[in-house]
């Protein structure tokens, strides 16, 4: 390295507006970048991370429906649960086929019609939330068996089930299904028990 001559150092001050602007911009960018870099977000404890990501990991929500108020409410609830992390809905209508018949035997047209109408209504709720929804009519001997089939076929991460326990009345189909499902859940199960009117 050469020694610096003092005479060289005697420089004239030339202040051009563009140069001043570049100098100021340089300092501002430097300051902003360093500030951003040094301000780290808080770390997430393991328990919190587990809770947050186990919910975020839910990508497919299976919603068994009937043409009843509480199952439509379950669809709305599932939409709100899945909307934040773009989960998909699998809307299923389970037709319980009596044991005397084969699973693929033809069904009365009114059952098929009711199923389609219920699924269309449910799909409209999903569309309102701009959530992708798949619909399917599933035949099974029992409703809980049908739900298990759907969870397996669609790789469901969660089942949202609406039900209503009416006072002084025998348990409805859904109540029986819930009981069977909770005994051996195929995945995470959320029960929305709507109070009796």
């Amino acid at each position: 390295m050469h020694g610096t001559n003092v005479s060289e150092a005697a420089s004239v001050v030339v202040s051009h507006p563009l140069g001043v602007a570049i100098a100021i911009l340089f300092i501002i960018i430097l300051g902003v970048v360093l500030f951003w870099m040094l301000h780290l977000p808080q770390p997430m404890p393991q328990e919190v991370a587990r809770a947050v990501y186990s919910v975020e990991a839910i990508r497919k929500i299976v919603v068994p429906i009937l043409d009843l108020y509480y199952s439509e409410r379950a669809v709305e609830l599932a939409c709100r649960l899945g909307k934040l992390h773009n989960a998909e809905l699998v809307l299923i209508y389970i037709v319980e086929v009596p044991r005397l018949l084969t699973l693929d035997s033809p069904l009365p047209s009114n059952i098929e019609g009711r199923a389609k109408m219920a699924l269309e209504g449910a799909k409209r709720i999903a569309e309102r939330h701009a959530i992708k929804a798949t619909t399917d009519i599933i035949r099974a001997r029992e409703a809980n068996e049908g739900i298990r089939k759907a969870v397996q076929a669609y790789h469901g991460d969660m089942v949202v089930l609406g039900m209503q326990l009416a006072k002084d009345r025998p348990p409805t189909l859904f109540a029986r299904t819930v009981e069977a499902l909770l005994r051996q859940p195929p995945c995470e199960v959320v029960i929305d028990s709507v109070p009796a009117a």
Partner: protein
Amino acid sequence: MIALLYARRNAMSGHETKVKLRREVSVWGSFCWGYADVGADVYVALGLVMAAAQGATPLAFAIAGTVYIFVGLAYTEMASAYPVAGGGQYFALRGLGDVWSLICGAGLLLAYTVDVALFATASAGYINFFFPAVREFAIDIGPFKDVNLIWLAETLFLILLLAVLNIKGIRESSLFNETLGALDLILETTVIVIGFAFAWRPDYFLHQWETQFPTTENLAYAITIAVISYVGLESISQAAQETIRPTTVIPRSSLALIVLVLMFALAFPTVSLGIVDWQTIAKREGDPIAHLASHLPFIGFLAGPAAAILGATILLISANTGVMGASRLAYSMSETNLMGAWLSHVHPKFRTPVRTIVIFSGIAALQALWAFFSGRRAMDTLVDIYAFGAMLAYFVSCLSLIALRIKEPHTPRAFKAPLNVRLGNHEIPVIGVLGALGTFAMLVTIMWTHHSARIFGPIWVAIWFAVYIWHRRRNGLPIFRSTKCNWDEEQLKILSDTGEWELYERLRIELERRSKRS
């Protein structure tokens, strides 16, 4: 992660437990590991680039900087997804396999050891600004003419000092970098801000740009030298295994480094050409910033000593980065079965890879010795092969980014490089493709324009390939095939070791889902 690697290695060596590296590098420390290296490179390259690119020097830095942005973004994604020692070598191992990993590692080892030799020598040279008699001292020893033994002794002392500092601990080594890095950042900013605000003439800058534009060949040559200004991004990845909260810290320190280094690299030639003529800066290739500073009002009288201190310190921390980088890289190569397991020993008290520090500081000392005994041409050779080693590694790293997106799409990434194209089920990074093309073009240009890089670069890689074959044969491992490893399990261990629970949970859930489907 280390645990799995240890387990894999211990199964062979019969050891039960092994000491791990310690996490002590903060966000500022992580930034400074990169800045130390890159900041020094700009300091050295300005005069050399200006000699070739003349009035178009900012253009040469801008073109080299474009490739640097691609490589930088690729590194940011991979270093934050795989925060372990090894950098490009480790990414290549996971993405492309063992042989590519060795090629990348060899390139990086070359860059790091030359970095230590070159910058320790240059740092001692700046210290001698205060002792002119030492600078002029020269004796003949047998066939070797004009050997400056005092300067050589200073250089070897600095390398020894850095080796001791690095053996003592990453905290000490990092603190050293952080302190000097902050000082240099302030001094370099002062020169640029005062230069632009009180001495820069845009008309003079434009006049030089228009009348002193270089030939295409000269511009290409200048770009290959300008590239060395950006070498050093790797250092952040090398320190990743010792960084606290690496997947949070590394994206921030890397992105900040990309922006700031680009700003400094473009600002220095721009401000220089608006104050003095390019020939003056080109003539002072040893101390271009000092010369520029001497033309500034208010601080010009202080320029000589201040720039000498600035040069000495920034070059020394760059050399320090080289010692850390080479040792961690060799440690990783040993851990991943590309070299003997003996090298990955971690000192039980200091928790540093002591054997690799000693060996690669020793290699750097030999390179410095060779440079002093061979005269100036050897120093030029070091600069050439420095760029070769780095570009080779960057090229393989960009390919690794593409390969990892295809092979490990489920690995959670704290940062994802922008501009991606979906091809079937794969998200191909355009940045990785452009980076691979850019670095390959640079590599070809370096080999075309730098005679020594064409010879010594491939020889160095061939030597390490021979070491690799010897090691693999000795341990009954395949040479051209990769050793098997459960990368998903290893990734979980990496994330668990870092304490980055968000990414850990995301990966765990994804793996659970995949196993459920299969």
